[in-house]
């Protein structure tokens, strides 16, 4: 149902910082604007990004830092939706 994750990297700054710990709701229905955890192309690692748009059944994700381009993922690649940060404790928008 829930999963704990820790962020590594800068592409979601200023919303998320490296080292921040998040609570993820697994199998949640993602919507535009949600921050989600996604399996990468290899399936071996997970990334955390925001859903920018939905087109043709694909979810386009990007980082809040704005440095990197969008990429499309399928619904089954989305592990879950970030509910909040528990370390530090704060809401995530």
């Amino acid at each position, binding site marked *: 149902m829930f999963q704990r994750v820790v962020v*590594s990297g800068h592409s979601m700054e200023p919303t998320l910082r490296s080292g921040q710990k998040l609570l993820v709701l697994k199998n949640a229905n993602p919507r535009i604007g949600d921050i989600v955890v996604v399996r*990468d*192309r290899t399936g071996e690692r997970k990334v955390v990004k925001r859903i920018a748009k939905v087109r043709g059944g694909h979810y386009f994700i990007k980082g809040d830092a704005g440095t990197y*381009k969008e990429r499309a993922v399928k619904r089954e690649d989305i592990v879950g939706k970030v509910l909040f940060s528990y370390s530090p404790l704060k809401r995530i928008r």
Partner: protein
Amino acid sequence: MRVMQKIAQALRPDVVYAHCDIPCGIYDPHHAQMAAHTIIRMHQLIEEAKGKMGQSPTPDERARFVHQMARCTATKEEHAELLKKEVRILWGDYFKPEHVQQYPDLHELAWKILRRASKVRQEINMPEAEGLLEDVNRLAEIFWKTKGATPVRTKASYPTGKEIVVPKA
């Protein structure tokens, strides 16, 4: 003890990567070098603006001077922060332990760049800005060597009139 280690491992959160793609492997010191050149250019424009201000400026001349100073300062701030961000990414995400072994001054160089970038935000200080560019160029040299490329210094095509490091074609 092993049981405790296993419990700790089971309770450890998964890592989720907030990088552009995982892993994209796309790193380049060019943005940091451009930012260093921009900082020098802002220093040059600030000095030009000061030079154009007469002894007794009219209200219009003073207004133009203050306007130019504000814009140059804002741009200097923005590019110093951009430079720090790019160097943090190279330092934290690209360089590996074997690079540090090969170039033992790498950590100190990155730290020095970050501190110098803060200093050029705080001051109008051309020697520091030029020193910052030199340090960033040195970091770029190390970067390209770790990529198996030969770095070369060449005059940049920017109005700063200073050098930039690029990989040999």
